Structure formats: structure tokens, C-alpha cells
């Protein structure tokens, strides 16, 4: 009875999120191209065989890992630095925080456009102008370093999130602990290493997991900045599958890729979820 209020949300979520995955499995066992009506037929695991033989798919999978982990880690480190800087009293702290959260709020498509044009453009871009005193000429960042260019936009958007999270972590740290350590003769670095980092640990874990959940699904930035190119140099799995499904109309192939992605994600997520639950969920949930 007490669970009745839960049911609408639960049923809705199951229908909208779980049934499509079951259908994905179903389609992945078929050969079906939308541009050839009537081509739908059972081919069982053929699609999977071609997915694993597809060297582009492997490259794209690797790109996804690099893009996700690289962006998360760099954003974490930058976020930590900013959080430490903000965890002090100084003039204009509120304004500084407001400025810093803004990149996270900006519509990702708009952010991507911004980076592609006014910032990273070889001729008119602000970045090359800022770097020109250091001898950088009209560097074509997006065609020369496509993956890195996409990642820069992602890191720029996600650093504020990490900063907010870690700042909350820093602010939840009891000051008496730090005062006690200072009286015990610990210096700033020792306090950071012995007290602050262990305290931040669960916040760092949480940031990693949440960042990864969202960044592994990155589509906007790839779509807008590089279209996955040149070739598939900067494509990630969401974009690659999108290409297969909506540009190649190959439902069976893209469904099989989707299933592979889900299985890989489940493997990673099982670890990640356990982390989150150990850190936060379980403690409050059990009583």
C-alpha cells in the first residue's frame, strides 16, 4: 500500500526506458535497412560479427573512452584547483562563482558552435589571437586536433560542475578538524594530503561517475564541432551509431552497436554504481 505512490513513476520509467532496450536487442538480430523496404529479415548474430570486425567501430570505441575519461579527469583536476581557490574568503567570491558556473549552464549546442567559430577558428578565432604572442600562427585546431578540440569544449563545460561539487565537499569539511591539525603542527600541504583529499574522496568519486554518465553520451559537441571527422578521427559511439542509423538507415547494425555499448556500459557502471552507493546511497537508505 505504501508503495502505491511509487508505481506511476516506476511504470512510466520502465515503459519509456526499458522497452526500447528490449526492442534494440530484437532489431540487432535482424538485417533491416530503412531505405530498402521489405529488407527486414532474421540474421541472428551476423550484425554482431560485423560490429566486431569493424575496425572503425573499435577506433570509435577507443575515442569514446579517451573522450570520456580524459574530459572527466582533466575537468576534475581543474575543478579541484578552482574549488580550492574559491574555498577562501575574498572580495567578490559570489561573483566569481557565478562567472565560473556559467559554462556549465550554456546550451551544449551553443557552446559547441561558440568553440567551433569564434574561439577556435584559424583566422578569426580568439584562441589563436591570444596565443599569437607565443608564436602560434593560424593553427587550424579543429582539423589538426579534432578530438582534442571537442574535448576542450567538454572540459570547459564540465569543469564548473566538478568545481561546484568539490566546493560543496570542501565546505562540508568540519573546520575543527583543520584547526586541530594546524595545532598538531601540520602544514598546508600535509593538511591537504592527510585530511582534505580523504574527505573529498567520495565527492571525487561522485564527480567521476556523474561526469562519465553524461559525457559518455556526448553527442552535441561532436555533431557541431567536427561531425566526427576527419574520417572517424573524432567520432564517438553515440555519433557513430547515429550516423549508421540516421544517415545509413541501417537499423540492424546500429541496434547491434547499441547493444554492445550497453553491455560495455553495464560492466563499467556496475563498478561505478557500487562506488556511488557505498559513498552515499546505502548509508541513508537502510534506516
Amino acid at each position, binding site marked *: 500500500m505504501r508503495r502505491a*505512490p511509487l508505481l*506511476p*513513476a*516506476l511504470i*512510466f520509467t520502465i515503459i*519509456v*526506458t526499458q522497452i*526500447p*532496450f528490449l*526492442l534494440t536487442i530484437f*532489431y540487432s538480430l535482424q538485417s533491416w535497412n530503412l531505405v530498402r523496404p521489405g529488407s527486414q529479415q532474421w540474421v541472428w548474430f551476423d550484425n554482431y560479427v560485423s560490429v566486431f570486425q569493424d575496425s572503425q567501430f573499435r577506433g570509435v570505441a577507443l575515442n569514446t573512452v579517451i573522450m570520456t575519461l580524459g574530459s572527466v579527469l582533466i575537468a576534475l583536476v581543474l575543478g579541484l584547483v*578552482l574549488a580550492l*581557490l574559491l574555498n*577562501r574568503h*575574498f572580495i*567578490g567570491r559570489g561573483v*566569481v*562563482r557565478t562567472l565560473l558556473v*556559467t*559554462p556549465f*549552464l*550554456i*546550451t*551544449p*549546442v*551553443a*557552446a559547441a*558552435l*561558440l*568553440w567551433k*567559430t*569564434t574561439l577556435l*577558428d584559424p583566422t*578569426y578565432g*580568439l584562441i589563436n*589571437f591570444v596565443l599569437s604572442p607565443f608564436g602560434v600562427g593560424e593553427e587550424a585546431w579543429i582539423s589538426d586536433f579534432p578530438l582534442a578540440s571537442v574535448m576542450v569544449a567538454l572540459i*570547459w563545460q564540465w569543469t*564548473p560542475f566538478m568545481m561546484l*561539487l568539490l566546493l*560543496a565537499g570542501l565546505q562540508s569539511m568540519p573546520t575543527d578538524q583543520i584547526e586541530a591539525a594546524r595545532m598538531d603542527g601540520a602544514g598546508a600541504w600535509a593538511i591537504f594530503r592527510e585530511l582534505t583529499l580523504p574527505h573529498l574522496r567520495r565527492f571525487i568519486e*561522485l564527480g567521476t561517475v*556523474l561526469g562519465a554518465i553524461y559525457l*559518455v*553520451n556526448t*553527442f*552535441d559537441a561532436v555533431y*557541431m564541432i567536427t561531425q566526427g571527422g576527419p574520417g572517424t578521427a573524432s567520432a564517438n559511439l*553515440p555519433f557513430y*551509431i*547515429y550516423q549508421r*542509423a540516421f544517415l545509413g538507415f541501417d537499423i540492424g547494425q546500429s541496434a547491434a*552497436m*547499441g547493444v554492445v*555499448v550497453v553491455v560495455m556500459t553495464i560492466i563499467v557502471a556496475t563498478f561505478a*554504481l557500487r562506488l556511488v552507493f557505498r559513498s*552515499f*546511497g546505502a548509508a*541513508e*537508505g537502510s*534506516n
Partner: protein
Amino acid sequence: MATTTERGPATATSEPADQEIRRSTRTGPVLLTTLTWILAIGFFFPVLWMVLTAFKTEGDAQSSPPTFVFTPTFEQFATVFDAGIGPYLANSLGATVISTLLVLLLATPAAFALSMRPVEKTQDVLFFFISTKMLPVVAAIVPIYVVVNNVGLLDNIWTLIVLYTAMNLPIAVWMMRSFFLEVPSELLEAASMDGASLGRTLREVVLPIISPGIFATALICVIFSWNEFFFAVNLTSANAGTMPTFLVQFVTSQGLYFAQLSAAATLAALPVIIAGWVAQNKLVQGLSFGAVK
């Protein structure tokens, strides 16, 4: 007037220097503060640059070296409005507002049930909700497309509303549960002893306490729905397109003209930036699924 001018210097001189509050004279904090400001401005500058570029002429926008001093013009915004931003804006508003209301409607009772003391399987249900966020959206897009296409709901705003509701529901349930958990159980017990029904208790006791939390949850749903692109670009076109798809469509049809695309991007991003500024204190709490207080 005369007295104040007299008193000013008098108090200043009568106060011995060592009675003033001692301020740190070390340069370390000053350096750190300066560094913080530089980094903050650096992070913010691209956004500022976007807004500035939106007010430039195309010539000012695409110049080398970049133009910092210019006469602002609204010409670009006019172009954007002429390009038919209206329906997209309306769709974004509709999809965002309706899906957010739906999320609140579904998540509030669910979160309440999950915050009540002995609910068996609370952990499992929470686990399920968050695990749906872990599954990559791409793996679902193909059947969603096929189904939506078959039932004739392609390019329909309600398709987006349903998907956005599902997308935000897990976060909302987690977040709201954490707000419900903050309501002391003794308060619920007191209300039940005072003879209040469950509905009454929720309305009169619980809602006033968690309303800031509901507001924060709503804002976060708004941010994510407004910014969503993947579903929008794959499932809509002219009829149900939202602001992010407008941006894409705009640059595709007009070409990459920096000033006018900056104007369009500014318009697309502005509502959420403002919402986020307002809610920034609650933002972390929501985005960490309520784990950070």
C-alpha cells in the same frame, strides 16, 4: 552638513593605528585572489565573447585581430527573429515546462514513498532509477525512432515531452527523496497524532518544508530539457523542433556567420543561464542526486 565634515577627519585622526582591525599584509592571499579572478574571467570570457559578438556587425565579428571596440547593433538579432525562431522557442518552452510539471507530478509521490521508513526494496528501486541514467541513450534511439515513426508521432512535441520526462525523472526522484529525508520523522508522527490524514500532512506540514527543494528540482529539469539535443535532432524537424535544433538549422541554412550565429546562440542559451544563476546554490544538490547537502 558642517558637523559631518568636521567629524570626518576628527575621528580619523583620533583613532590610533593599532586600534584598527589588523588586516593581513601578506601578499599570498592577494596573489591567490588575483589568480582566482583571472581564471574565473578566463572561464567566463567565451560566454561574454559570444554575447559581444552577437552585437557586432559581421565585419567586426570576423576580423583579424579580433575587434574589441565596436558600435553595438541589433541587426543580428533581427536576422535571427526573421529566420523564424518563434515556433522553436515556443516548442522549447512547451517541452520544458510540460515535461517538468510531469516530472514533479510523478517524482513527488515516488520520492515520498521512497523516503518513508521501512519500505522494503528501497535500495533496489533507487538503484533501478539511477541505472536508467547509466544506459547510453544511443542504444535506445533506434527503436524509439522506429516506434515513434510507426505511430505517427515523429516531429511531435509530445514525443519530446514524454522522453524528457523519462530523462529527468530519475534525477528528480533522487533529489526529492533527499529533501523528504530532511523532514524529521517526528514531525510526521506529530501530525498523525494530531489527527491529520496523509494528504493533509503532505499539504500542510511537508510541502512548506520541501518547497525550496521542489523549486530546485524543477529548475534542474528545466535546464536539462531546454538544453537537450540528441532526441530533438533525431525525432523532430520543422514542427516540433526546439532551440538547439533551431541553432543547427539556422547555421545550416544561413552559413557560419559568426555574429548572427552568436546572436542565435545567445538567445538559445540565455534562459537557462539565468535559471542556473538563480539556482546555483541548489544546483550541486540536484546534480549530485541530493547526495551533497
